[in-house]
């Protein structure tokens, strides 16, 4: 693939454009409803469920760091057969990243396993960046702060569900609004004509990420999947006479309408969800069926089908009347307490292939400069292994992809591989984040069009961190 030439063009042109429109939005709007909604932009969050092992993803390429990591987790390297010249974890085979800001890392070099080759290509072409050691924080913290509790810390670190929730909503399980949904709320507030139904779209479960005040997750089917109401579509069900036709029409209306006379709150909600779901799914499916299908073929994996559904939804942005959209997809299986050498490469490969196809679909739609794809995960994992796996951690490294990413760089920090370093917990070597999720997410939000006031409203601890450090988009 030749990303390089195009990337040069993209980087220069879109940055200029984005900068100009941001300026305009400041001039043109007051403080309240200020989100910039010109053009089309979408952010696509991919939640890597289970906690992706960042140490087995962003790999050390220089000999010293490589040896250091191997020393902390000999079992994992052994299960990867890392001494085998064919192994993806053999140092020679690690795909090197051409890090533009390499000078920040004192001669350390970085790479990716071969399962992430498309990400390497994108990184080296400037279409992808890495944000190092990002995770939930309330204020900057190191090991001493963590151990003495002298700074305030996020609640329930190391717990899957709570940290997933914290990544997506800044609070533990039970949160009712995610920052994706709040981004959507902000753009809906600035665009009275936008259809709120399609502002926040999930291709998987309805997790808290997309929940806002007005925004709620709309679930899209996989690309090409036609959803119908079978009781209506299959004529033999109700029969073939005129009376049957009339009954079908009434049944259809009944199933798509919320019944109004419930006082029980659970029943009110159940009725509304059922009716809205059926109505919206059918409307969306009919629209999708009449549109031109994408030429890009997505891998037939769970994530591939999800991103295919996301791409299809973007292709309908005109008819659906949306200018800003937040998408959510997820891939499971990252909780690699054991058999990491079998499980993680397989997940990486699927992630890689789905993102590669997604990029192709965006290029096909002419949207690659208008989307930002970013990964999230429960947490990173312990650098010190437990045999052939790793345990729950805290900070981790993440990808940001898209034509307008200032790629080829590692943002934030990647602490050196040494459990004595003050950003690691003792013994197990869990990373204490150096970049907060709020900083990271606010960067996405700024690109998406939110202004500083809106971002401050969504991210209450933003002011405790250095804002300028993270400018990947």
């Amino acid at each position, binding site marked *: 693939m030749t990303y390089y030439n195009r990337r040069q063009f993209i980087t220069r042109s879109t940055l200029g454009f984005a900068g100009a429109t941001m300026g305009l939005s400041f001039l043109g709007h007051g403080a309240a409803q200020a989100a910039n909604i010109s053009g089309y932009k979408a952010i696509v969050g991919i939640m890597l469920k*289970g906690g992706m092992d960042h140490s087995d993803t962003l790999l050390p390429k220089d000999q010293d760091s490589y040896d250091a990591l191997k020393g902390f*987790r000999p*079992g994992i390297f052994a299960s990867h057969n890392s001494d085998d010249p064919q192994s993806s974890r053999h140092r020679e085979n690690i795909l090197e990243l051409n890090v533009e800001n390499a000078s920040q890392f004192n001669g350390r070099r970085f790479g990716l396993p071969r399962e992430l080759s498309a990400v390497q290509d994108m990184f080296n072409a400037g279409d992808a960046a890495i944000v190092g050691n990002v995770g939930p924080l309330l204020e900057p913290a190191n090991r001493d702060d963590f151990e003495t509790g002298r700074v305030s810390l996020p609640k329930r670190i*190391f*717990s*899957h*569900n709570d940290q997933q929730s914290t990544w997506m909503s800044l609070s533990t*399980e*039970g949160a*009712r609004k995610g920052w994706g949904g709040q981004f959507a709320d902000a753009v809906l507030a600035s665009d009275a004509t936008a259809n709120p139904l399609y502002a926040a779209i999930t291709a998987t*479960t*309805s997790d808290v990420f997309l*929940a*806002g005040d007005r925004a*709620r*997750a709309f*679930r899209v089917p*996989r690309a090409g*999947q036609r*959803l*119908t*109401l079978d*009781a209506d579509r299959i004529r033999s*069900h*109700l*029969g073939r006479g005129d*009376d*049957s036709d009339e*009954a079908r029409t*009434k*049944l259809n209306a*009944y*199933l798509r309408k919320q*019944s*109004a*006379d419930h006082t*029980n*709150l*659970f*029943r009110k*909600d*159940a*009725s*509304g*969800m*059922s009716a809205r*779901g*059926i109505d919206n*799914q059918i409307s969306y499916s009919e629209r999708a069926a009449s549109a031109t299908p994408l030429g890009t073929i997505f891998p037939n994996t769970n994530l591939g089908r999800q991103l295919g559904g996301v791409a299809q939804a973007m292709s309908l942005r005109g008819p659906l009347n949306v200018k800003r959209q937040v998408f959510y997809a997820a891939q499971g299986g990252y909780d690699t*307490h*054991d058999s990491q050498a079998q499980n993680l490469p397989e997940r990486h490969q699927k992630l890689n292939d789905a993102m590669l196809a997604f990029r192709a679909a965006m290029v096909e739609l002419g949207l690659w400069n208008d989307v930002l794809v970013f990964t999230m995960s429960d947490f990173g994992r312990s650098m*010190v*292994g*437990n*045999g052939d*796996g790793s*345990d*729950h951690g805290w900070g981790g490294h993440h990808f940001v992809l898209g034509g307008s990413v200032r790629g080829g760089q590692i943002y934030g920090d990647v602490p050196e591989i040494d459990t004595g370093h003050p950003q690691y*917990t003792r*013994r197990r070597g869990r990373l204490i984040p150096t970049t907060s999720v709020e900083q990271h997410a606010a960067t996405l939000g700024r690109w998406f069009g939110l202004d500083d006031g809106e971002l401050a409203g969504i991210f209450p601890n933003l002011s405790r961190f250095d804002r300028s450090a993270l400018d990947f988009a």
Partner: protein
Amino acid sequence: MRYQLKFVLGTLFAASFLAACGGGDGSSPPSSLSTPATGGDTPPPAPATKPYTNLETREEAARFLMQAGFGGTDAQIDALVGTDAADWIVNEMRKPATLTLPQMQARYGTSQDTDQNHSRMMWQTLLTADDQLRQRMTFALSQIFVISTNSFSDRGFMTAHYADILSDQAFGNYRSILEEVTYSPAMSRYLTYYRNRKGDERSGRMPDENYAREVLQLFSIGLTELELDGTPKAGELETYDNEDIIGLARVFTGLSGEGSSFKSRDHVEDWSIQRLKMFDEEHSELEKTFLGVTIPENTKGDESIQIALDTIANHPNVAPFISRQLIQRFTASSPSPDYVRRVAEVFEAGRYRAPNGQDFGVGDRGNLQAVIAAILLDESVHDDIQNTNEGKVREPVLKFVHYTRAFGAKDIDVWEEWRLNNTSDPNERLGQHPLRSASVFNFYRPGFIAPGSETGEAQLSAPEFQIVNEGASLGFTNFLTHYIMRPADDPDRYPGFQPDFTTEINLADDAATLVDHLNVKLTAGQLSEATKAEIVDVVSTLIVDGDDAEEERRKRVQTAILMIVTSAAYAVQN
């Protein structure tokens, strides 16, 4: 803090006592049920007024069967009218357990170990087995002590063995379930402590922390200290920290399949359906400190596990933490703190006296007979249905099983039903498949509050809305449509799974009568007036006359049923 000898003796005594009276082979009647509360030969004097647990009407009987089991046929509903709910529970607890593994092995010998075969056997049990309270409890327990066949490739017998532990222990004791689960091959594979080795200082290897973390967070005490009523104590005190996990992780080292050594391939052939074995040479000999207890260094593996499980099970959080989740699985998505406290008190006491005098439990803390009875016979479950905050959003699996059982579907042979192999897809199936959640966090979380909802505004938890929502309603409707709208005369395509609509077809000439009948049977009479009127309207639209009258009656019945099972009254039991 050092481990106290007195505590060891106390808990060891409790453990042996439980072994004697809890669990068992599941086929003998629970001992606590054999002695009436009042004792002796003279029957207790009849109370002046019948207790509130007396099921006076068909509506009350139907409502109770939805809460406690999988709903009922007309005959099952009729049989309950005029009886006390406590007596039904006693009767159910005396039924022998329908276990999956023996059925699988009888059908497949010992070689056909596929996940699909397990799945089919499981559906057969859910859809037809007579011991419905036990099966409902098994399903509930499988959503607390979660494993998922998503993580196994064709370990059907191992999964069946695990499900049978839950069935067998359904009316046993919490502490013994915790132990059986801990020593089960399925859980050890799922949460990766199978062949978990002790740490190694030289290489820096540490024990796998997975089970240590999840057994605390999900199977026993949760993350924050709780009042007995399940609400967090003031100040959000965390129950454990990372040091506790590091200590407890050392406990769950050394377990492997039955065989002569920890790591070699000479496990006995059926190791996956046998209790795990401790290999002390791979068990951590270090001191193990967690939850305020220290197990001295060089304590053997099985003994360490006993101490750890006693410590966990005796934590004061267990009663509210487990009670609240069991309530959610049976009767209330958002149980009131008072309800949780009443059940948690029973959990602590290990005994419960029903309003009609029936005793449940023998006084062992965590006795599940007592806990189940306390949940199902609680006053809030039997009072009027007007309370806007009560009720339970039903899991999709329960809604499907209820429909199937309510019409006594004959010749159910799930081997013909490929749709049941995996019902997880929300677009085309139920969005839920038993023992196959996405992670150890089950299909939904106990504290889930639906965003943008009225229940959410009222701060009511509704775990099931995590899978019963906009994204799943069309798939659910189509799935049920497939099972309801089956033609009567197509035995080649649908050789089994034919619902028996005879009673309904006989009522179908009068739409209002038909809908009234189905309303009681499927929603305990709780359809709203407007919904009832709409259903009557649609049903009346279908004309019954001429040669096809019988077929048209059938379509009326099917249409009415479809409209009811997609109604809010069916989706939420109250």
